[in-house]
């Protein structure tokens, strides 16, 4: 926990975990062996807030890096999420069907969305490091949001 990066923007704080990689579209992927677990970041869940549904992929389906996988619906907005890496879906977080708020409450843990078996692990080199993602949040949040 102590090694998390805390990005402070104005009055808001965002956590970036050091043990995973990130995308420009605010997903994280935690790679273990030839598998990757995917979710959305603390920043993304705080932008969306009040998540009421998560559209999950089907186990066995294939996803491609940068392509849309599903969507999250919050009270106020719908937001697509994308595959950080290419692969075949091996597990989905079924708990999110009944308790989608887990994405808000624990985006890096209980709120994970799906797991893939990586078909092209080399793609990971183009993902953002935790430090680079933290910088991205800072520069993005500096813009007026309304």
């Amino acid at each position, binding site marked *: 926990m102590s090694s998390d990066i805390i990005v402070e923007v104005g009055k808001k704080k965002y956590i970036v975990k050091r043990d995973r990689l990130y995308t420009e579209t605010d997903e994280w992927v935690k790679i273990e062996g030839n598998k990757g677990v995917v979710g959305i970041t603390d920043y993304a869940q705080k932008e969306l807030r009040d998540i*009421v549904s998560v559209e999950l992929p089907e186990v066995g389906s294939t996803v491609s890096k940068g392509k849309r996988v599903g969507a999250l619906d919050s009270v106020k907005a719908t937001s697509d999420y994308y595959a950080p890496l290419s692969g075949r879906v091996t597990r989905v977080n079924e708990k999110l069907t009944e308790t989608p708020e887990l994405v808000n409450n624990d985006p890096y843990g209980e709120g994970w969305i799906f797991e893939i078996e990586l078909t092209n692990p080399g793609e990971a080199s183009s993902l953002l490091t935790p430090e680079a993602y933290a910088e991205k949040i800072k520069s993005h949040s500096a813009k007026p*949001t309304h």
Partner: protein
Amino acid sequence: MRGIHLLDYYVEKLGAEPGAYGDWEVPYRFSGAIEEHLEVRERVAFFDVTHMGRLLVKGEDAFDFLQYIYTKDLKDIKQGRMSGPTLSLNDWARVKDDEMLYKLGDHEWLIVVNALASGKMIEFFKRVREEKGFKVEITDLTNEHTMLAIQGPESTRVMELLGASWAGSLKPLEFKMNETLAVGEVYLVSRSGWTGEDGYEVWAKPDVALRIVEALVKAGVKPAGLIARDTLRIEAGFVLGGNEYGEDPTRFPCAVGLRYGMGAITWGKKGFIGEEALRACRREGPRWARYGLKFSKEAGRIVPRHGDAVYVEDIQVGWVTSGMYSPVLKRAIAQAYIDTRYAVVGEEVEVSVKGKRFEAKIVDFPFVAKK
């Protein structure tokens, strides 16, 4: 942007997440909009609604001035009572704003206007006054008082806790002024709100309001933000500018189809702005009318959005104006304009949500009955 008086307190002490609403900065949420929504339906929570525009209209022509502007007949409203929602129209019988009037006396009324319409309405009131020569003074009280809304089935108990032992004797839409509560004097207390639950609204100087908020927090009453306020009003069947109504006749139907109920329009009344077009719309029969749509539980956790199309077979018969997944009903609901030829309560329609069709039933408001 201007923050409401107590914004820093909410952010620093209560963990509010602030956001923009028009040119205001207000708390969007505290613990989370869904939790806050349920807290209001099941127990009690408080909102800070200081962004609502509040105007004092005073002068010998105050009554005539207001009669000329609003669709509701104000002559039967007693001193110490609110009008219930009423509408201000433009010449196309489209709605400028839905507002609430408070009768302080024959020549003295308060108007509560929507935050986003506030600037426009003040200009409009002044223009009407100049054009027609009404003798009225219009004073903007918005910055004078903080306005709190204590809402939920337990709200009377909370008001008693604040020292308003008489609160429970107020009838809906009744108000009292210049009362002394445990923490100091307040300007106005009314039995009202915008959540569809029992509740009270309190106007007080910011320092007194802060002590009220501290007392509420100490008593375990949860704060709630603007997002929950919106979902509560959708479930209650209340309307919001930009969603259910607006001035543009190409985007919004005439006010007859708003079906606001609660006596928002008095047909027996004559001589108000927009009347001609409103009566024409009534005689011709409104093409569109606002109804509720209740989705089946099987549709799951979908969120119908403003603009989603409503179908009967392959014919588009309407569009969604506001939608949500109701945490109370555990199903999706929406407010929608439906072509009046197809608007049969109890009938089924289909709604396209994110490109997929879902069945829904046409229902009347509210979706959720008051506790």
